[in-house]
């Protein structure tokens, strides 16, 4: 950025120009934007965090510890396991999809079709997606019956859409396309000339992947996995339709919010939300660091 002295010289020049923009146009727009975010996002969030650390008006960690212990330990464990499994499996499958599609040229229409489909499918969360999986893999689902007909008793294996495994399958529906969208630019950015250069210098294909491609792909892949984690952790509608009394953090927040008869219970809800925000903030911070690194490497 420009240093202090340069600014001091340019400022008055801009000010004397008879141009219609107010000198503070940018600042004014930024102030309006900040005020909006402050009222509708920061204020409610800060109030919740404040309540969480001061249950019943007295400062203390009681609510925060209660929210991750006793009956609330398992929703947190379930949500983290569900999000992590979705993120890792979705990350691997999405990366494989990107690698499989990378030098695909033969049916001309296929590559644009996959790109467009992934943009659409990554958006297809929520209520309709849950219905689709009920129709396919629910107790009366079409696929469940088809598997039954060939002798595989899906429900007998303990599989159900409201179990963690079932939810992972449903969440993969929007996680794989999302991962594809995130890593595709990096995968497509692997230049063919780099492989040729490596081969010319005597590197085996394995060596090329380990020493050239992998270091380039690791930051965007990890960033994508974190994105999937955040996305899965805060997903609500799909889980609600499949199992509205489920042992997941978003569903528990709803319980506490709707049944806030006892005052202590309300503080518990605030603490659940505070833990969720802290977890997502951590994920976002890690992701930003990784993406910055990825961008730096892509430029150099």
């Amino acid at each position: 950025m420009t240093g202090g002295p340069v600014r001091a010289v340019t400022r008055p020049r801009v000010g004397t120009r008879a141009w219609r923009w107010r000198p503070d146009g940018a600042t004014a727009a930024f102030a309006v934007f900040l005020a909006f975010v402050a009222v509708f996002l920061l204020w409610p969030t800060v109030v919740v965090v404040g309540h969480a650390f001061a249950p019943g008006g007295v400062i203390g960690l009681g609510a925060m510890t209660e929210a991750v212990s006793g009956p609330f330990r398992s929703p947190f464990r379930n949500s983290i396991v569900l999000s992590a499994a979705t993120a890792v499996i979705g990350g691997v499958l999405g990366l494989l999809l990107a690698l499989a599609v990378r030098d695909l040229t033969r049916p001309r229409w296929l590559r644009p079709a996959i790109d467009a489909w992934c943009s659409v499918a990554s958006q297809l969360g929520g209520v309709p997606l849950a219905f689709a999986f009920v129709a396919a893999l629910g107790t009366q689902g079409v696929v469940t019956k088809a598997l039954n007909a060939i002798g595989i008793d899906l429900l007998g294996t303990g599989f159900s859409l409201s179990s963690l495994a079932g939810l992972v399958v449903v969440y993969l529906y929007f996680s794989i396309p999302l991962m594809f969208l995130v890593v595709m630019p990096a995968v497509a950015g692997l230049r063919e000339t780099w492989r040729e250069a490596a081969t010319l210098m005597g590197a085996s294909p394995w060596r090329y992947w380990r020493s050239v491609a992998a270091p380039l792909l690791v930051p965007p892949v990890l960033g994508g996995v974190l994105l999937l984690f955040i996305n899965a952790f805060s997903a609500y509608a799909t889980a609600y339709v499949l199992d509205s009394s489920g042992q997941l953090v978003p569903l528990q927040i709803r319980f506490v919010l709707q049944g806030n008869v006892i005052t202590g219970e309300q503080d518990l809800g605030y603490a659940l939300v505070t833990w969720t925000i802290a977890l997502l903030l951590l994920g976002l911070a890690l992701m930003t660091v990784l993406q910055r690194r990825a961008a730096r490497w892509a430029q150099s």
Partner: protein
Amino acid sequence: MGAVVSAATVERAAARTPRVTARPRRRASGGSVARWAYLGLLALFFVVPQLAMARFAFQNVPVVLLDSSTLFQGWSAHRLVEALTEPELWASARTSVILAALAIVLNLALLLPLAVLVEVRRPGLRPLVTAVTLLPWVVPPIALVVGVAATFRQVAPWFLASPLSLVPFYALWAMPFTYRALDAGLRAISARTLVEAARSLGASLPTVLLRVLAPAMSAAIVASAGLTGALVLGEFAFASLLLKNTLPTYLVNYQRGAPQAGMALALAVMLLTAVGMAGVVHLLRRRGLGVSTVGV
């Protein structure tokens, strides 16, 4: 629901385009078979649930009897017609459409001037603005609704009485990806040069915004609008917990009473969203932009 624009900014997309010259190379046929098998399996995973839902929705057969032997029986659209004649559907759809339109306007009104001014006048502010626009991601609807109940409900209960009170929050959750779309669009047209040129020819701020920048970045604006609209039409948690009747909350309630007709309606909504999104994606692709969204 939250969303993102993927890191595929314009520069990268532009750098990618001339690289399509991947020559047909010799490839181990084993790898090729594995690749096509993988693509085939994924295609099945993505298509089968939709087909299953189509059977539930459009076959006039009780759910229990929907197996391979009844594959061709009783296909009809009468359940969808039935679902479409419910007046409540149109009331909630109207609410959702109004919410979407207002959220789009509010979102653009807040972010378009900001993105332009940051790009043209204060590039130093960009990291800060980018960071702030990411914040809505950290506070998903299910978390913010608790805070809203704790603040607005007590300080300004009149505010939450109207379904329109959802508008600012939807505009907020759209920010992480609309700001990125607008920013990418601005960089793609080298806005600073355009503004300086217009400025040296004596254009005023409204002229610069409406007659120079807006037409040049129409794709990014349409993308922002489309993504905001898709978000609003799909958001369930916030509306349902604040007891507002929008399209997604109606879908859930209606499907409880009429399982198969509910699926017909859901399929129709999903197809409409997909077609709309595909249109936006197509538009962007023509301009060399890559935008992705995340459904929650």
